[in-house]
């Protein structure tokens, strides 16, 4: 055995050690992820095949907005709108670093203009407006642009008589736009209300993490609120609560399962079942009582 062969063999051992499974052939060597929950190594190929859910412990890894849309929309049906809507820096906000720098680097890193992607699509042939937040973009926090895109989503759906399906992931309101961000909570809630008054269905999927001003506005105003397993969902952040009450929080506090237990969400749905579940729900809510 040559030295280079020996190295190759060692590499192979390293990358195939977990459960003795082999990596799918088309995935380049060395692309692997450590599961934040069970700490095991998961290959990119395995992760992709498993919808970015850890095959060992079921931990749901983050999805980008477009991965989420690919998961839910009927193939080829998604047509994005308002892709160019972005926040500016209306307050000239500089603390630690300028907001303009944060915006720029978020745009570079994610390839997105803002923290949410919205568009028209079909899910199981039901016409919907589908949106997904992308946590890579300043924690998908809600400033003017995210609020505007969410409000427009409800408005487009209301005028075209579509259902709305929104997948949330957000740290909350975006501090760097001050009160303009806080007011987006009222704006998006008002738009959601108008959709409801038009008797059009709204399904939200709360994913990890959904916190603060996004939870406390449009995210939970849906007719049916679904959550992914193990997601952190709440109003106040765990650290803020611990500092306020000077106690440690119980295990699993603010998890999807905890919220289900306390009556705050309708169902915790594993990612592999999500599209089917949303389709079924749309059938009930958008299809009326008579089955064709």
């Amino acid at each position, binding site marked *: 055995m040559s030295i280079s062969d020996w190295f190759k063999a060692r590499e192979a051992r390293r990358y195939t050690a977990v459960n003795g499974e082999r990596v799918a052939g088309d995935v380049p060597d060395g692309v692997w992820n450590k599961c934040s929950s069970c700490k095991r190594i998961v290959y990119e190929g395995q992760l992709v095949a498993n919808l970015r859910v850890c095959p060992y412990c079921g931990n749901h890894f983050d999805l980008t907005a477009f991965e989420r849309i690919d998961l839910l929309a009927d193939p080829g049906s998604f047509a994005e709108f*308002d892709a160019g809507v972005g926040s500016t820096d209306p307050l000239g906000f500089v603390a630690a670093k300028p907001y303009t720098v944060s915006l720029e680097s978020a745009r570079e890193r994610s390839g997105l203009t803002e923290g949410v992607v919205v568009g028209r699509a079909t899910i199981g042939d039901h016409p919907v407006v589908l949106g997904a937040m992308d946590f890579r973009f300043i924690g998908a926090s809600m400033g*003017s642009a995210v609020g505007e895109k969410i409000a427009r989503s409800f408005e487009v759906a209301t005028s075209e008589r579509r259902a709305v399906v929104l997948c949330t992931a957000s740290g909350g309101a975006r501090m760097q736009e001050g*009160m303009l961000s806080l007011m987006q909570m009222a704006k998006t809630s008002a738009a959601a209300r108008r959709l409801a008054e038009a008797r059009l269905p709204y399904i939200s999927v709360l994913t990890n993490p959904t916190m603060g001003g996004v939870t406390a506005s449009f*995210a939970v105003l849906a007719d049916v609120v679904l959550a992914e397993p193990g997601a952190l969902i709440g109003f106040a952040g765990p650290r803020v609560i611990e500092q306020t009450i000077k106690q440690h929080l119980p295990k699993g506090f603010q998890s999807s399962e905890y919220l289900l237990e306390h009556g705050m969400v309708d169902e915790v749905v594993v990612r592999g079942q999500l599209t089917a579940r949303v389709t079924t729900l749309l059938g009930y809510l958008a299809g009326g009582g008579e089955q064709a």
Partner: protein
Amino acid sequence: MTRRHVMEFERPLVELEAKLGELRQLDLTANPELAAEVAALAVEIEALRESTYADLSAWDRVQISRHPDRPKAQDYLAAIFTDVVELHGDRCYGDDEAIVAALATIDGRRVAVLGHRKGKNTRENIARNFGMAHPEGFRKAMRIMRLAEKFGLPLVTLIDTPGAFPGIEAEERGQAWAIAESLALLSGLRVPVVAVGIGEGGSGGALAIGFGDRLIMLENSYYSVISPEACASILHKDAGKAAEVATCLAMTATDLVGLGIVDEIIPEPVGGAHRDPGEVFGAVRGRVSEALKALSGRDPDELVSMRYAKLRAVGVIEEVQG
């Protein structure tokens, strides 16, 4: 007059005022020289008062908005409303004293009133959780909103909270859900809504009852997406930078008029509302009455679509054609 609470920026002034107060206790008829000195001190104090309060920073105003002697929602209820009937409970879990709800009359007009309610002493503040509501507080507020709508009573809200309470039970009972539902309900309420910022406007807990057809703020009240201390500890890892961050956050009444969020500002007496509450009560009564008068008789559909248009316009975005 003794003051329980002195704000840092006004300490020199308050010390001189205390000295003057002591001097005024003396019988000066037999001592004209001392009497002249007292008069001079009074003049000096006036000048110092002018300069101390001439150019308040956002952080100074935050201190004023949190002053323990600042008039609270219950003081406004007592001073500018008559025939006040307080209503209790959310019919679901309990009665959250951090929110006050009432039917009341202002200048001959029957209205419903909601406010965040802080205490005036430790005992009251413990009972009222320092004005930080739990979900049952917001659900009580929603009950009163529906009542107001059902019986055609305009709604007046008084905003004064550090924020919704961040605690285990609050999360367990759906703090986010209660706030979101309150926002949606208030946005479509088919009666006039006049909101007045009287003190602290802390984040989602303030907003839950804190917007409407008119948003009026007292000069030294604030309204913010996050407390300056929390913002400083997140961005700078240093809560001590709160003063600096307060300016960045654009949270004063003047800032918010500039951003198109606040409609009008009610000036306060020099030094803050607690220096002359009577003057402030008079001004608030006048402005709220005027706003209610201007909104009365509007068609509910028109009212709701105007309120939506107002909310819809908030935000600054750019649209890059891609």
